[in-house]
């Protein structure tokens, strides 16, 4: 029969907690991002420039790009302009986003968060495992001393 001290019990408790939390975080980090990003749309934020069309006879208002195309998580379809670009690129109306105060999330940010969660979960699982090994060795030492 082994004697349980306070420290081994504490370490065992923390280790099991780390494993439990790590498992949840790992699951979330792997499963959640693909679900959140499955409807991400490749879009280019633009400012509609009617002046250029009037001046240079461009046919339809020019679209001044803001940054480069990104995969956005957008629920509000009114943020998109009716027309599309090459390969179906959608255009996000910057004026509409400013009016509604919307700052669209990017798929890459969600993916980054998932990756970070998996790394964090890995650390928790390793620490939890090391803690349990420490406790088991302590138990064996106690048994050996009889």
């Amino acid at each position, binding site marked *: 029969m082994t004697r349980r001290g306070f420290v081994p019990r504490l370490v065992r408790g923390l280790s099991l907690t780390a494993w439990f939390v790590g498992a949840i975080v790992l699951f979330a980090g792997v499963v959640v991002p693909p679900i959140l990003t499955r409807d991400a749309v490749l879009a280019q934020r633009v400012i509609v*420039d009617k002046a250029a069309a009037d*001046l240079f*006879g461009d046919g339809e208002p020019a679209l001044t790009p*803001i940054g480069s195309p990104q995969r956005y998580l957008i629920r509000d379809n009114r943020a998109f302009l009716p027309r599309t670009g090459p390969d179906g690129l959608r255009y996000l109306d910057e004026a509409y986003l400013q009016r509604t105060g919307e700052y669209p999330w990017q798929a890459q940010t969600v993916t*980054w968060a998932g990756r970070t969660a998996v790394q964090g979960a890995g650390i928790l699982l390793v620490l939890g495992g090391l803690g349990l090994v420490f406790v088991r060795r302590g138990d064996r030492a106690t048994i050996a001393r009889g």
Partner: protein
Amino acid sequence: MKQTSVFAFALATGLMTSALAQTKTFTIVGEQLQMRNLAAVESVTDFETFTGKTTGVTGSFKFDATKKLGSGTIVVDVKGIDTGIPLRNEHMLSPTWLNAARNPTITFTSRTVKHLSGDNYRVIGTLTLNGKTRPVTTNVRVRYRAAGPASKEAGFNGDVILVSTSFPVKLTDFGVNVAQGRGKVANEVTLSLNAYAVAK
């Protein structure tokens, strides 16, 4: 001999004056007209690709639409740059980043301009950011419209040019400590400028 020299000098001056007479001074217009001047800076990292933008763009150009010659300066108001997140804007303007209180503007000035083809020019100039000046070489597109019904329809009262350019900038070259961003701000960002200017 002296008369020939005087004549040659007068001829050269006359020709130069004639050339300069085609050169007009264009001033970047303000927001009151229905167009968008835009300065934007894009940072690409694993965490996020974000763009800071402002319509606070001023400056002027000298441009000869016939000879395809020109020069100019574009000034961007740093305090007006909006990255979409107020806290990030606050950090960006702080002394540890762009130090907007001490360096309220970003300035691009041309030194030499070479016409390439169509509306495209190769410009060698300087960029002043965070109080530091570095050389820059970039392609610039200059679209020109003489005063007339089209320019009036667009709300401009004179000849109009639309100047557009985009080039990479290394923030560390301008004394910005990017490491403090912990991977959320790229060292190499893309600066884009788009401005309408009118010659009255």
